[in-house]
């Protein structure tokens, strides 16, 4: 070995100072080697740890799982890996990024290597601990950014409630879920009465203010599982999971009344607002969620035809009404 030319053992010194955690366990989980990375991050010097049982020296380690992992390496004579994505760390070490951190511990990737003579069974297992904190932080930031983008793409820019894209996805998934697992849900389609007149009389800024205010007031009344979104223009959809028609009707009427009783104030002008609503409930024989939008549309039309500012539940007789209209 060329290492003999030095006054120190080359391989030993490199292992000692390598910026990767290295330790070696025998079959009884007795520590045989403990390099400086491990010593410095754990605060336990090699002479405190070597010769001791790993789990006695570090009682916080996940013993059953790590025992299985190491034993597999002995048994299969094959390397093994541990990823921070599945288990953030093996040892709870602090990381070296106290300022740019965002993580309260060092993320670790580990590699387990069987150690053996040329031919034969493994006599020890070498564990390498890699600091993966930078990768983990970058990946977590990316994940947050992607979540934020997906959140933004689901929102209506003016009112901040969900947009049509999200509503359609949600209706479709709610429909599939109900078909698969049973239960029910209702949807309410509603429309601000004479909204064009609001815009024409008070201007578009006033119209926007009305949309924003109505959306906010409704949102404040929802249960956490309810979904409110702007379907387009002055049209909104409310999805009410686990709610039969009667419940949806009562709830919709309460919202209708709330809006009627409190006009929207814009620039010291009082703007009275009313809404017309159509309610429908999921039925087992519906071919797709568009049956629900169709039915709630008919019910909404019936509310308008009957004089507005009211709630109508879908009824098959409405189909005839609509057919007569054409």
């Amino acid at each position, binding site marked *: 070995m060329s290492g003999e030319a030095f006054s120190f053992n080359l391989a030993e010194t490199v292992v000692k100072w390598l910026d990767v955690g290295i330790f070696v366990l025998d079959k009884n989980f007795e520590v045989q080697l403990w390099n400086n990375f491990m010593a410095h991050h754990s605060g336990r010097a090699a002479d405190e740890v070597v010769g001791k049982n790993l789990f006695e020296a570090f009682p916080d380690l996940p013993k059953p799982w790590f025992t299985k992992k190491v034993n*597999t390496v002995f*048994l*299969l004579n*094959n*390397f*093994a*890996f541990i*990823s921070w*994505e*599945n*288990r953030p760390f093996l040892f709870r070490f602090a990381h070296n990024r106290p300022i740019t951190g965002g993580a309260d511990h060092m993320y670790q*990737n580990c*590699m387990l290597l069987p150690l053996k003579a040329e031919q034969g069974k493994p006599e020890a297992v070498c564990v390498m601990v890699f600091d993966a904190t930078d990768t983990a932080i970058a990946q977590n930031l990316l994940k947050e950014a992607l979540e934020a983008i997906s959140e933004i793409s689901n929102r209506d820019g003016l009112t901040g409630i969900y947009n049509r894209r999200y509503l359609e996805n949600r209706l479709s998934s709610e429909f599939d879920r109900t078909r698969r697992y049973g239960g029910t849900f209702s949807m309410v389609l509603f429309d601000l009465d004479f909204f064009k007149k609001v815009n024409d009389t008070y201007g578009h800024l006033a119209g926007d203010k009305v949309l924003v205010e109505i959306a906010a007031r409704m949102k404040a009344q929802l249960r956490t599982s309810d979904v409110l979104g702007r379907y387009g223009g002055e049209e909104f959809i409310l999805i009410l999971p686990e709610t039969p028609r009667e419940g949806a009707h009562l709830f919709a009427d309460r919202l209708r009344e709330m809006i009627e009783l409190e006009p929207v104030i814009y620039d010291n002008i009082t703007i009275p607002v009313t809404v017309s609503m159509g309610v429908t409930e999921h039925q087992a024989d519906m071919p797709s969620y568009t049956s629900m939008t169709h039915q709630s549309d008919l019910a909404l039309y019936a509310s308008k035809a009957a004089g507005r500012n009211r709630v109508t539940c879908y009824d098959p007789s409405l189909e005839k009404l609509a057919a007569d209209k054409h």
Partner: protein
Amino acid sequence: MSLTALSNDQRDALQELTNIAMGQAGASLATLLDEFVDLSVPRIRVVEVVDLPPVLADLVGKTNLVSAVRQSFQGYLRGEAIIIFGEPGCQALADLMGFEGELGESGENELLLDVANVLSGACLGGMMEQIRNFTETNGPAELSFSMPLVMARQVMAEQLIDPQKVQWSHALLLEVNFTIKNRDFIAHLTMLMPEDGIEKIRGIIDEFIAAF
């Protein structure tokens, strides 16, 4: 016929080499899972990477969802192993490992990584062992492996690999069927390599054929 296609003799010899290796993979899997594992004789072929998406789709089924783990290896041979699991296989594995109720995404990923790692390690490691037994050409037949990563969960087989984004030109495709506890599932072990890697294997096979 493509430049790197194998002759029948070569393919038989490679089949022989991988049979022994896969026998070890089966034994290792059985130990890992604590269940008897029955492995089929691997089917093997060489395909160009551009042909890989349709070939994979044919193997797995066009509309079937797959999950896949990738792991690179270097040393005697250099390349990337992609281990593809059909969706029922993932579930069967989870059941076998005795995870009660919800396994959770990270637990399921860990399981996939462990099984994939054992498969590629045993298969490629076993091949290296066979090679060491009859030749020292090209130096010691040793490989090192890097950390396996889940590359996709529940995607269509055809979308798994985008040949445009792959730096390898050829793939050694090894198809293995597993039966565990009367449950069938299939894993496909795909080894992507540069052309010179395939050439190297061809050279090794010829030596193997000459030696026996």
